């Protein structure tokens, strides 16, 4: 997309339009302007969104299409471990699995990234080296985000220094729900700056945002602030990644690219456990934002148990008989 306009060149009539024209430089000039912009976004028809995603369950993806979907989904997985009990040993074994998800089959693709807490990013980096599998680290007082900005930024810098090339931050849901949108925006801008070259994924924690309208607003805040990815959830709150939420966020990234020319990635995380769920997401992407997003650079699954199910389905397609949990690693 190319039609990026200089806001200074806009006529007064254009300024009066309800949807501001790109590049939105003026919408963040004050709290009230930002609120007016965000509340001016079109409302989400919740029933319509649910009806739309309900259709996905009626599809049947078979044989070669299914094989393609499984391999694509594996290459999009952010293999995640975010437990208090994580150890360097566990991260190393996860890294080994990321590099060779199915040791019995060398044609199985690698996953996109390993996602860990910031203090273990160094271990993951050491294990993954220059393999091309990224190291993602959660930061900014994940998962609650309840810390001062100085602490959050220090958390981000620490993770980047440890070798993370992708940072998953959480937004301040308290500020968002209280209506202090500009504060949320400025925090993301500050984190993005602290990331340096690392990619920034912004976690909205949609399970705490209550409405789909809020999901759309938070998506726009994150994209306007420079997030490279928007991500649904931490995985610590239920509900996590649901399909209606995914639909709304995908429409947001689609609209944002149409308006500004900048493409933002999308990462659903939490609650995606089966191959069927993953395939539904792939179909939803293809039909909402198009094949441009069907790439690990633009779409990721945040998951831990999903990978094993994908591998079991892959083995079923390869061997012709059902596999079992004894034939994949225990994470």
């Amino acid at each position: 997309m190319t039609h990026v306009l200089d806001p200074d060149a806009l006529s007064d009539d254009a300024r009066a339009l309800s949807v501001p024209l790109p590049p939105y430089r003026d919408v963040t000039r004050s709290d009230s302007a930002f609120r007016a912009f965000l509340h001016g976004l079109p409302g989400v028809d919740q029933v319509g969104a649910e009806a739309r995603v309900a259709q996905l369950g009626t599809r049947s993806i078979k044989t070669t299409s299914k094989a393609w979907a499984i391999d694509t989904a594996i290459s999009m997985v952010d293999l995640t471990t975010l437990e208090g009990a994580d150890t360097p040993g566990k991260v190393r074994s996860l890294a080994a699995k990321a590099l060779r998800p199915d040791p019995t089959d060398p044609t199985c693709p690698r996953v996109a990234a390993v996602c860990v807490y910031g203090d273990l990013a160094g271990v993951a980096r050491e294990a993954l080296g220059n393999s091309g599998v990224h190291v993602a680290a959660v930061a900014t007082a994940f998962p609650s985000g309840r810390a001062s900005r100085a602490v959050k930024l220090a958390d981000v810098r620490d993770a980047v220094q440890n070798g993370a090339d992708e940072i998953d931050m959480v937004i301040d849901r308290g500020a968002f729900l209280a209506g202090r949108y500009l504060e949320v925006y400025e925090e993301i801008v500050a984190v993005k700056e602290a990331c340096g070259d690392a990619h920034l994924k912004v976690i909205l924690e949609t399970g705490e945002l209550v409405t789909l309208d809020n999901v759309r607003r938070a998506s726009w805040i994150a994209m306007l602030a420079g997030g490279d990815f928007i991500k649904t959830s931490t995985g610590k709150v239920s509900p996590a990644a649901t399909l209606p939420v995914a639909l709304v966020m995908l429409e947001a990234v689609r609209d944002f690219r149409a308006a500004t020319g900048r493409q933002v990635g999308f990462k659903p995380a939490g609650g995606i456990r089966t191959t069927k769920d993953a395939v539904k997401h792939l179909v939803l992407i293809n039909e909402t934002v198009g094949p441009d997003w069907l790439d690990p650079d633009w779409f990721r699954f945040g998951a831990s148990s999903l990978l094993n199910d994908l591998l079991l389905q892959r083995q079923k397609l390869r061997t012709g008989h059902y596999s079992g949990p004894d034939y994949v690693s225990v994470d």
Partner: protein
Amino acid sequence: MIGNDRLAVRKTYKLYVNGAFPRSESGRTYEVTDAKGHFLANAARASRKDARDAVVAARAAFPKWSGATAYNRGQVLYRVAEVMEGRHVQFCEEVAAGEGLSSSKARAAVDAAIDRWVWYAGWTDKLAAVLGGANPVAGPYFDFSTPEPTGVVAVLAPQQSSLLGLVSVLAPVLATGNTAVVVTSKDRPLPAVTLAEVLATSDVPGGVANLLTGDAEELGTWLAEHADVDGIDLTGAPPKRAMEFEREAAGTIKRVVRPPATEPDWTADPGLTRMTPFLETKTVWHPMGV
């Protein structure tokens, strides 16, 4: 007042998987007739995906069922016999219609089936004493062996004896602490459906026993090849396919019970032969100390 003009309630039975009664994923059903060919009911015709779901359910149910004390398992199974007794009349009607037996012979078959269930329920806490025990070894060790359940067992139930035969192959699998995926007699599935209703209303946890009505010839190959099935009882397998199923089962070194040449007389004393194939022997060497 209900006259003879009352509309018949025609039944369409479903599968029993994970403690629930789902339709077949495939949506297929088939007509079940009595021995003379008259329509009895519609039954769900299970597909390979139903078998897959049943194996997942049986695997999930295995830790709790195998971890229950033998005494508790015995009580739960005895409770099943109690509920069967309450359904005695229904079982008799279904066995008589399906197998073409007189009512007295059907009653004898149902009595034998319930007695057989009680008999296996009694075995749960005696197996360890009979099949295990202390081993005399050279060295300062207390060495003992105990029987442990194998895991998920697929059972192709007998095609002829629809209740006594079914109980005779299912009860030993459950009594030993395994969980079961059963493919019932294809032409005579109704006593199995009623047994599923009995299991659902007794204390057997969901997923421990899963009953699929349908064709053993179709489902057998998927269960025999399934990598998450630990044993398979081929009693009800079609004779022409049994060897093929056995070969497929060898791919994942399953325990296999071979089908008899002809269906045996189920009223005979079963002995331990149907329990031992699905038990592993665990031997522990315990240092005696000083």
